[in-house]
């Protein structure tokens, strides 16, 4: 539930940061709602693969590093603090996108030249692997999980939360007037960041007092 709500609170931000990758192709001429739905499903599949890959990576960190640590809260706590401060900063004070979408533009172009039909899946994978602050918080949360299934389920719930905002995507024209939603989504994410900042501080204090 925590992961789902983290995803939900950040979904509005996710879609407006990462949508420029997909929207130009979805809203192209001649593509009906059914075709757009298929493309969106491919995009979301790519995102899910990206997220689940990181779930495995997070579990791997738990097994290799966290298990050997006496007080794991002393690692998770500061991670929460750093990432939540990032989230608060991007939520209230910075307008430029923090995710890796722009950085992977060249790579995407090369892939598209080799395999043009792969765009939605690749775009989804790239945006799923982006290191935006809400994703980093979700990754930290997943690192606390002891089994791989728990970690994957955590990221799956996060994915579901963000994906709700992609549901209207196949229906063209819905991106008009998104500026307000983007600001609200960013600020809501910033406020959720305050919650994680508090959690991180409590973990740090608790870790030191045990």
């Amino acid at each position, binding site marked *: *539930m*925590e992961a789902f*709500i983290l995803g*939900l*609170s950040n979904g*509005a931000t996710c879609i407006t940061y990462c949508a420029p990758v997909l929207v130009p192709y979805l809203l192209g001429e001649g593509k009906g709602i059914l075709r757009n739905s298929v493309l969106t499903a491919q995009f979301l599949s790519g995102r899910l693969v990206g997220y689940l890959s990181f779930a495995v990576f997070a579990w791997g960190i738990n097994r290799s590093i966290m298990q050997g640590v006496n007080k794991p809260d002393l690692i998770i706590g500061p991670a929460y603090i750093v990432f939540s401060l990032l989230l608060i900063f991007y939520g209230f004070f910075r307008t430029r996108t923090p995710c890796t979408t722009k950085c992977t533009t060249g790579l995407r172009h090369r892939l598209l030249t080799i395999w043009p039909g792969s765009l939605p899946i690749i775009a989804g994978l790239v945006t799923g692997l982006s290191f935006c602050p809400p994703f980093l918080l979700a990754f930290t949360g997943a690192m606390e999980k002891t089994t791989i299934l728990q970690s994957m389920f955590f990221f799956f719930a996060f994915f579901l939360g963000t994906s709700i905002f992609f549901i209207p995507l196949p229906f063209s024209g819905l991106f008009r007037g998104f500026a*307000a939603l983007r*600001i*609200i*989504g*960013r*600020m*809501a994410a*910033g*406020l*959720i960041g305050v*919650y994680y900042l*508090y959690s991180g501080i409590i973990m740090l204090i608790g870790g030191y007092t045990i």
Partner: protein
Amino acid sequence: MKKDTTDTSAIKKRSLFKTLLLCLPMMLLTFMMLSQGSIPTAGERLFALAVTFLFFNLLFFLMVRTGKTDRFRSILFITLAVVFVFSFISNLIAVRGSMALSQAHMIEGETPFCHLVIPMTIIPAAFTKTIIFPGKILGKYSIGGMFVIWIGVSLALGRGLCSWFCFFGGLEDGFSRILKKPIIKNISKKWTYLPYAVLLGIVLMSALTLSPTYCKWLCPFKTVTEYVEITSVQVLIQTIIFVSLFIGLVIVLPILTKRRTQCGLFCPLGALQSVTNKTNVFEVRIDQDKCIQCNKCIKVCPTFSIDEESLGRGSVKASCTKCGKCIDACPQKALFYHVKGTSLNSTFDRYRLLFLYPAFLVLAIITGGFMQDAIVKTIKLITTGTIM
């Protein structure tokens, strides 16, 4: 909608007889609601009823006679906030001995329910059929009672609830009128979206934790009502947060900006009420033939509900609380209350009257009980030295 632009002359001053005639229904209604069917026999209660009745109807008379809305609305609105705080705190001290709320009080369902909690309760109620608040479903200050009031006032006034009902808004309204000119004049437009972000955040966190997040962590008005007794570090942090927010958003920023900063830049219920404005029949419109783009309305709007873009469209934003300040301030009388579906004529005072009746009645009803209680307690304090 086709605009009727035939008559752009100012509203003629209404005759004294007509004004009194228009005030008569309000006099009857306020008397009925204040007395609740029986005139008190005790001296101080009768005095309180008389003073309250006269005060309300004098203000309404002046509203109708002068054509000014906000000038007189604000007097009653600020009075509501002051008497509410006085009455509420004195009742708490009489019953509990302090403003602090203990866990035992919560278990026994003794926490009065306020309208700010409503947004947080909806999703949990839909999923679990329970209200995530330590109050009572029925009775005085109950959950059921406040929900009914919220639904009724929202249907009648939309976001007008924020300027004609909310017993907290008058505090900021009062502080925002202290200085003649604002010291902070420009606030970035992006902050006007913060209430929606707060709404989204608290709704989600309340659903996650099954506890009212805004009440626990953010509500600045706990400073003047009741708060959880400090028994842990977490509660201490919560106390610091809400006191800081009260000082910042309710006192300091309204003084410096001459705006209602808590209402316009933070309140999640206000954000929810903006949605109800879309379906409410009353609205504020701008006659673009009269408008000279002086932007005075933009500068005075307490909730940042007008900007150049909305001015160009001839309307205000959904966050408008229908306080009437922009209407009073406009030198060209270009802004006016309007009833949706009817002709766009800025000279028709009937729209304003149709709005004033339900709006003023709401304000009078909610203020009446607290004002009478405050007067009685003040008399007791003067005559006996105690309010108990």
